[in-house]
C-alpha cells in the first residue's frame, strides 16, 4: 500500500475556511453563556425565597454610572480594533487605554458596592439566599471582567513597548469578542439583579 499517494488534483486556491480564532472564541462564549445561564436561573429561582433580611430592595442601588462605563468600553474596544486594522497603532493605543480605564472604573464600582454591602448593610454570601445568589452571579461576572482587564493590560504593556503591529489585528479582534460578551452578560445581570429582582 506504499502507493497510496494522493494526486494534487485541481488544487482549490479559493479554499478559505472561517478563522480558527473566531470559531474558538465563539465556542468558548457559548460555554460561558451556559455557565451564566445556570447562575441566572438560580438567581431568578431564589428571588423572594430568602427567609431573613436584608432584601434586595433595602440594600441595592442602581449602578448607572459604572454600567454606562462598561457598555461604553465595548465601543472603545471596537474603535481600537478598527484603528489597528487601518494600521493606526497610535489610535489603537489610545482607544485601548480608554477601554482599560472604563473597565477598571466598572470593577472599582463593583468593589465599592460590595464594600458598602458587607460593612454597612451587613450582607455577606452566607447571610441569606439573596446574598448567596447575588455575590455568586455578580462575582462571576466581575471575575470575567478581571480576566478581561488582565488581557487588556498585557496588550497595553505590549503596545507601550511598541510590540503591537497591524498584523495583530486578528488576535485583538478575537479578544474583543470576549469583551463584548462580558458587556452583554452585564446587561442580563443588570436586568435580573437590579430591575427584576429588586
Amino acid at each position, binding site marked *: 500500500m*506504499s502507493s497510496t499517494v494522493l494526486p494534487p488534483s485541481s488544487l482549490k486556491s479559493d479554499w478559505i*475556511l472561517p478563522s480558527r480564532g473566531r470559531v*474558538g472564541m465563539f*465556542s468558548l462564549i457559548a460555554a460561558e453563556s451556559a455557565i451564566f*445561564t*445556570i447562575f441566572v436561573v438560580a438567581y431568578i429561582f431564589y428571588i423572594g425565597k430568602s*427567609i431573613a433580611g436584608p432584601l434586595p430592595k433595602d440594600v441595592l442601588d442602581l449602578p448607572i454610572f459604572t454600567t454606562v462605563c462598561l457598555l461604553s468600553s465595548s465601543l472603545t474596544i471596537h474603535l481600537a480594533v478598527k484603528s489597528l486594522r487601518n494600521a493606526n497603532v497610535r489610535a489603537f493605543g489610545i482607544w485601548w487605554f480608554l477601554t482599560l480605564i472604563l473597565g477598571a472604573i466598572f470593577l472599582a464600582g463593583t468593589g465599592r458596592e460590595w464594600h458598602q454591602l458587607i460593612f454597612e448593610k451587613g450582607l455577606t454570601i452566607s447571610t441569606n*439566599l439573596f446574598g448567596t445568589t447575588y455575590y455568586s452571579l455578580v462575582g462571576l461576572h466581575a471575575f470575567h471582567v478581571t480576566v478581561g482587564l488582565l488581557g487588556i493590560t498585557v496588550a497595553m504593556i505590549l503596545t507601550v513597548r511598541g510590540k503591537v503591529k497591524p498584523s495583530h489585528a486578528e488576535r485583538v479582534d478575537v479578544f474583543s469578542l470576549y469583551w463584548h460578551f462580558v458587556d452583554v452578560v452585564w446587561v442580563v445581570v443588570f436586568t435580573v439583579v437590579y430591575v427584576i429582582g429588586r
Partner: protein
Amino acid sequence: MSSESIALSSAGHGALSVGERLHGWITTVDHKRLGILYIVYSLIFLVIGGVEATIMRIQLIVPHNHFVSPEVFNRMFTMHGTTMIFFVAMPILFGFGTYLIPLMIGARDMAFPRLNALSFWLTAFGGLLLYFSFIGGNGLYGAGNAPDVGWFAYAPLTSRAFSVGHSTDFWSLALLVSGIGSIGTAVNFIATIISMRCPGMTLGKMPLLAWLNLVMAGMVILAVSPLTAAQIMLSIDRYLGGHFFDTQAGGSAVLWMHFFWIFGHPEVYILVIPCFAFASEIIPVFSRKPIFGYPVMVAATIAIAFISMSVWAHHMFTVGMSSYGNTFFTVTTMIIAIPTGIKIFNWIGTMWGGKIQFKAPMLFCVAFLFQFLIAGLTGIMLSASPFNWQLSGSYFVVAHFHYVIVGAILFTIFGAFYYWFPKMSGRMYHETLAQWHFWLFVLGFHLTFDFMHIPGLLGMPRRIYTYEPGRGWEIWNLLVTIGVFFQAAAILLFVGNLLWSMYRGAPAGNDPWDAWTLEWSTTSPPPDYDFATIPVIESRRPLWDLKHPEDPDWKYE
C-alpha cells in the same frame, strides 16, 4: 505520502534516554501523542474502576456478605461511577477524537495544540485529585476518606453536616477541573473541524467521525458547562457558607437535581455519539460498502443532540413533578428513540448486501447494534413515568444504563481499539486473541447485565450493600457476579494483546483494512507532521477514488 516524507530531527530517535523521552511526552503538543496519553490514562482508570466494580459485586454475591463494610461499599459505587464516566469514558473518547480528527480531515494538528495539552493535563490532574481523596480526604476532621455521596451527589448529602472532611470537596474539585479540560477539548474540536479541513473537504464530504465529534463537542459545551456551574455553587455552599442547596435557609435540593441532570443526560449522548462515529467508520469498511444514508446519519445525530437537551428530568420522575412535567419528559424521551432508530437502520442498511468480514472491530460493532437496541428498549420502558415510579432507583435502572455504557459504548470502543491500533502502533494486533476477548466479553457482559434486570424487577434497590435471603434475589446476584469474572478475564486478554502486539505484532503497513479515509493514506504510525503534502479530496472516500480511478465516488455524490 511515504515516498516524500520529510526527514525531521526525529532521525536520532533511538538514541534518546528515558528521561528525554519522558520529557518529550510531558511537554508534547502533538495531537497524536496527546491522543495516546488520553487513551493510556483512561485505560489505567478503566482498570481501577473495574476493580471497584468487582469489589461491589463480590460483596453482593451472597446475602449478608461481609467482604466490605457499608461505608466502603458507598465509597466504591461513588468512585466507580465517577471514575468510569469522567476519567474513563470521556477521556478515552477525547483521546480517539484528538488522535483521529486531524488525520481524517487532512490537517497537521488541532487548531490549538497548546490548548490541547492544557486540556489533557487538566483532565489528568482532575483524576489525581479525585483519587488523592483516599489520602487527603480525612482532612482535619478524621472522618471519611473517599467520597461516598454517589456519582450524582444529591443534596443534602453533600452539605457540610452530612459530608464531614474533604472527600466531597475533592470530588467536586475533580469534576470542576476536568470539566474545564473537557470544555477546552470541545472548543478545540469545533475550531479544528470548522477551520482546518483540507481543500475540497466541504461539510458534506467530511468523514462521519468528524461530523459526529463536531456534534459531540457542541453538546459538551452546552452540557458540561452547567455541571461546572453547579460545582462552583456546591463549593460556595461548602466553603463560603452559601445556601444554594441548603433547605434550612430556603434553598432547594431539587435544584441540584435539575442542574446535575441537565448535564447528566446529555452526557450519555456525549459518550455514545463518538461511539456511533466509530461504528459509522468501521461497519462500512468491513461490509465493503459506503455508509448508507450519510445525510440522514448527520441529520439524525443533530436531532439526537437537540432532543437530548430536553429529556433530563426523566431521571426525576419520582421527585414529584407536575403531571405536565411528567408528560413532557416522557414524550421527549420517547421521541429521541426515533432518530436513534434511524441510525440503527442505516447501519443495517450499510451491512445489507455487503461482503461482511467478521474481524474483531466488526464483531464488536455488530454486538453493539444488538445490545444498543435492547438498551434503547429498556430506556423506552423507563421513559414511561408510571413504569418509572415502580422501577426508579432499582437494579433494573442499573442494568439499563450499563447496557448502554458497556453494551454499546465500551463495545464500540473495543472495536475502535482494534480498528485503529495498526495505525497508532504500526503493528497488527493478534486476531485470535481478539476473537477470544470478544466472545469472553460477550459472555460475561450478558451474564452480568441481562440477569441484572431481574432482581430490579423483583424490587432490589440499587446502592444497597447487602440484602436479606429469601427474596428470590440470590441466584441472580450470583450469576451477575460470575459474569464479572468473565469480563475481567476478557479485559486481561485485551490489555495483554495490546502489549504483545505493540512489540511483536506483524507490521501493519499504511492501510491494512483497505479503507477509504485519509488517516490510512499516511504511514503507520503517522509522522510528526501527519501529511507531507496536504491532501486535496473530491469525495467522501478519497482513498477509494485513488485506488479506483476508473470509477471514483465523486461522479455519484
